């Protein structure tokens, strides 16, 4: 018991240090890269890193394989955009409102799907995601449908946005580390590995599962909301299932159930997809192939390969 605990703590500490090193390296990037195009690409990769971390909390740490991360990013982005469009609410209130709103929705979704597992859970969250997208895309008078909504900018410069996204990434990373080191993290892992066993040892499974849903969805909502102010346009396309597919592939390639893995995966997938787009628009073919190969043969992802844990 003690040994197992130390093992996990040590693993988490290495993992966290690696993640911090990546964030530190990212912080130095604007010193060398000044092209707004590449900064933009990096900002979008950090957006995906946030989604990947959020989804990983649910799927990698708690074992709840949701297919709705992109839908929650879309909902977060729309919450901010709609507050601004209809009621001229400032971003300083609009962004926290998006976080709170998606957290609440995530909590409700978590309560609803509490008893569902595996394929049933995947199908229910998939339907939730698609319903959300269809409703947002078709409520023309309220959301302007597929035309999308304009969002005011939060920062003046690309570099400003870059450091904003990076700061948020760091904050989310630290928060996740604290949670995973504490009781909640161990409870989540216990629920992932053996739900019945966890419950029989007195873990409040209902509470911790819904908590994981709420937090994960709030992270996705925050990411979406920030992305909206960066691109200054939100559209239902943010919630496409394809986006969820990208997030999943990032986490699977980077390493599920780790902190550094999703960040590495997001950077790698998004940056190389920019490169592959230049080669001939084959990025999605390559990534889906890589994901299948990783899922089939290297289940612990790059992080697992790097640390020798197969």
């Amino acid at each position, binding site marked *: 018991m003690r040994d197992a605990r130390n093992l996990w703590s040590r693993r988490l500490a290495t993992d966290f240090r690696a993640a911090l090193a990546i964030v530190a390296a990212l912080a130095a990037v604007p010193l060398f890269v000044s092209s707004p195009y590449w900064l933009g690409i990096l900002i979008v990769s950090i957006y995906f890193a946030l989604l990947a971390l959020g989804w990983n909390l649910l*799927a990698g740490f708690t*074992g709840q*394989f949701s*297919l709705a991360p992109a839908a929650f990013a879309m909902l977060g982005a729309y919450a901010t955009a709609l507050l601004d469009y209809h009621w001229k609410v400032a971003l300083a209130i609009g962004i926290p409102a998006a976080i709170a709103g998606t957290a609440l929705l995530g909590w409700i979704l978590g309560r*609803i*799907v509490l*008893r*569902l*597992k*595996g*394929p*049933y859970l*995947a*199908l*229910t969250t*998939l*339907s*939730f995601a*698609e*319903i959300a997208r*269809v*409703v947002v895309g*078709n409520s023309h008078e309220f959301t302007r449908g597929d035309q999308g909504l304009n969002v005011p900018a939060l920062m003046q410069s690309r570099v400003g946005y870059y450091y904003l996204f990076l700061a948020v990434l760091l904050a989310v990373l630290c928060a996740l580390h604290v949670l995973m080191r504490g009781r909640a993290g161990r409870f989540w892992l216990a629920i992932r*590995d053996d739900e019945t066993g966890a419950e029989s040892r007195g873990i409040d499974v209902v509470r911790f599962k819904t908590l994981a849903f709420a937090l994960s969805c709030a992270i996705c909502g925050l990411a979406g909301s920030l992305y909206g102010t960066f691109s200054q346009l939100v559209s239902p396309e943010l919630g496409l*299932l*394809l986006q969820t*597919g990208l997030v*999943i*592939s990032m986490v*699977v390639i980077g390493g599920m159930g780790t902190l550094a893995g999703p960040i590495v995966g997001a950077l790698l997938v998004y940056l190389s997809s920019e490169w592959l787009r230049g080669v001939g*628009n*084959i990025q*999605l*073919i390559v*990534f*889906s*192939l890589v*994901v*299948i190969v990783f*899922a*089939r043969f290297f*289940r612990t992802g790059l992080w697992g390969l790097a640390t020798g844990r197969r």
Partner: protein
Amino acid sequence: MLALDLFVNGLIFGLFYALMAVGLAMIFGVLKVVNFAHGEFYMVGAYTYVLCAMKLNVPPWVALPLAAFAGAALGWTVERLLMRPLYAGYASWSIMKDEYAVVVTFGLSLLLINLVDKVVGPYPYRGPPLIETSRFALGPVMMNGQKLIAAGISIALLAGLAIFIKRSLWGRQIQAVAQNRLGASLAGIDATRTTSLIFAISGLLAALAGALLAPLINPSPDVGAFPAIKSYVIVVLGGMGSIWGAMLAALMLGVLESFFAVYVSYDYRDAFGLLILMLVLIFRPQGLIGEKGREV
């Protein structure tokens, strides 16, 4: 009389849905996983039919079995390459079995869509119809020849499948493996080969659905997304894993949808089915028919 028209057309779409959903139900029945690439089996069938007929000048009646063969080959290959870890005795895989299946089939779906998009092109193709007729009135029901023939073929296929599962040796082996994989293999049934067969059959049926509908839907690479989502709804409605439940639920959904689109809301018709799916999974996860209807 509009109601009768809607009813008949709904039933016909229900037949096409059934072709898709039955395969999905069989896969779920045997492996307890959802095949998220099922829509792409349909897409591959539609493309094989259209490309054979248009580029190779194969007559439509020959292109149809070719499409079915392509679907069966694809299903068989997918099972051989990707589904084996789900049951072939990898002890450590069992914990993450569901996740593995979702990731792999989801990845496969993306792969096939983008491969076709890259190789064939993103534009929709219009397939040649099996017979040339314009719309005609069949009593109060507006009909066209392609739809009528496609419906006829679907009925024949579904009936054939039902007899195959009920009566033939292979069909009984499928039933046995679905009920108890270990028990079936102890009784001398090759469970591995049976699983391959199931994937081949469900690939075949989905591809045929795509080929039959190709003249009506103008296939594009992502054409499989909606039929796939419909078949998830159907499989859940019919009780996951039940073939008969899936057939019944497919007809029901076809009719319900065609009424919903006209009388309630056309824009939200796709959300409607998904809402049913969520409600059923939450309140009646065994499906509308329940355990009794689950034979495969």
